[in-house]
């Protein structure tokens, strides 16, 4: 199976300014890849390299098996720029029709259907569109020709929560039909629920690629157990993965790294009346990556 994206040692410098350094990454068909990092980390640089808007300083990249400069493959890609600009007196509907024609056609009714789902007004001249509406038009044009590969740079910016839900549904539909999505964000929470894998980029370098399920497993989890009678502290001390243990009468509070198995088995010897386990905080892991990396890279370069 050909990788949808295959980057090897991909680098981009803007003069002496670093945009992206030595990116090696494969994205497989049918996956949703979340691309995370703070603003200026190199996310947009990566995406614009994939779209052939900018040319690499070093390394090589293939998109859908071809060099990005091959115009024909771009008909099979849907792209939402990070900073989408739509202007002029032209109505959104006419502009979408133009883009659709240039990409080799859009199934009839598809634009209207997407516009209804996202609640977008297609009859307004583009210069009159609000930020949110502009983003909706951007999403419609990225999805409308049912591309094999959808690349979205900060897709959720400017969308209200209801529309965000609809957008995530659209992303899942793309995966369900075996197609691929690459979406960037600086907020993990936006992508963690749909992504199969996330890549974390910082200061122009990809510092980690993680399976979201694996990331969850690594996640720090806060657990609170309540028993019907006070429990001895010794029963919970020294359990693998258990930290910050606090035993107060009939209540046990701790955080666990990884699997909660040992804790559950220890607790099973007593009568548990109440159990609270907070959702793993991926944001925290995310920040851990940053602080570790941040110690080594103090010179962050905006891109």
């Amino acid at each position, binding site marked *: 199976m050909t990788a949808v994206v295959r980057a090897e040692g991909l680098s981009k410098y803007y003069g002496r300014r670093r945009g992206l350094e030595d990116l090696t990454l494969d994205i497989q068909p049918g996956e949703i890849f979340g691309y995370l990092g703070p603003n200026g980390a190199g996310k947009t640089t990566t995406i614009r390299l994939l779209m052939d808007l900018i040319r690499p300083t070093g390394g090589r990249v293939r998109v859908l098996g071809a060099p990005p400069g091959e*115009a024909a493959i771009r008909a099979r890609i849907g792209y939402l720029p990070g900073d989408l600009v739509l202007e002029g007196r032209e109505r959104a509907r006419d502009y979408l029709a133009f*883009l659709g024609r240039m990409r080799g056609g859009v199934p009839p009714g598809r634009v209207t259907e997407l516009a209804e789902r996202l609640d977008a007004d297609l009859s307004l001249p583009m210069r009159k569109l609000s930020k949110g509406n502009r983003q909706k038009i951007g999403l419609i044009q990225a999805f409308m020709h049912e591309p094999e590969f959808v690349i979205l740079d900060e897709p959720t910016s400017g969308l209200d929560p209801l529309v965000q839900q609809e957008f995530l549904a659209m992303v899942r539909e793309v995966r369900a039909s075996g197609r691929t999505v690459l979406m960037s964000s600086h907020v993990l929470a936006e992508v963690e629920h749909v992504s199969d894998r996330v890549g974390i980029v910082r200061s122009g370098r990809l510092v980690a690629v993680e399976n979201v399920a694996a990331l969850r497993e690594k996640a720090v989890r806060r657990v609170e157990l309540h028993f019907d009678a006070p429990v001895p502290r010794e029963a919970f001390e020294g359990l693998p993965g258990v930290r910050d243990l606090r035993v107060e009468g009939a209540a046990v509070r701790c955080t666990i790294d990884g699997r909660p198995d040992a804790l559950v088995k220890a607790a099973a010897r007593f009568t548990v009346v109440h159990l609270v386990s907070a959702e793993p905080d991926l944001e925290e892991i995310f920040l851990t990556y940053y602080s570790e990396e941040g110690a080594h890279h103090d010179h962050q370069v905006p891109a």
Partner: protein
Amino acid sequence: MIIKYLRDNLRALAGWTVGLSAFLTMYLGIYASIKDDPATYSAQAMAKYPGALKDLMGGLQDIATGTGYLQTVVYQLIVPMLFVVCAMILANRAIAGPEEAGTLELVVTLPVERRRVVLERFAGLALGLLAVAAVTFVVVWGMTRQVGIDTPFGRLLAAHTGLYLLALFFGTLTLAVGAATGRKAAASAVLGVWAVLGYMVVTVGRGVDAVSWLRWVSPFHYYADGRPLYEGLPAGDYLVLAGATAVLALTAVLAFDRRDVGV
């Protein structure tokens, strides 16, 4: 894509066409009164402007003759400059303008070769300017018949063709600099300097040996030197203009194909 470019610029094109036509109508209309008293107007014109300014306006010697008036008022300074500015504005809307605004991003990611993007916008520019030139030609032709300027049709067409080629040259220059740099300001600056110096060299600099050789790089030399209004189509000069335009268009295509967009 050509049609899209023209439609996006329809207002600008229509505006320039109407404006230029009104300007031409008004100025050519005045000739009706000059014709009645050529001696006075000619003397006045000669007295009114100092030598250098007269050179700048192309001499003014025969302003009271029909063809002389047409040359001075239409084909000498103001109208060519207006055409050049019109070409500059249209050309800046092809690549550099949309790139600075950010709207080029989606266009470049369409499944279209970058070379084709530039070529089609060049074609759009050429067609747009052709429309402006065609309408204004009809206006000039109509007005000259109206006020009794009897320059033959062929000569008028030759002069107007020069106007079109001149505008297209400068428009393509703007397009090429814009395609290479992505900056409107850079494109406009190069055009401005080349156009003003080029014009000075063939008018006030004509008799100055130190600068007159520079006329070979002045588009105005090839535009005006053949005196198309008096002597008909200067095919060689016009071919130079057209050839230079083709070279610039090719430069635009190659430069845009190679560089990063929107950084």
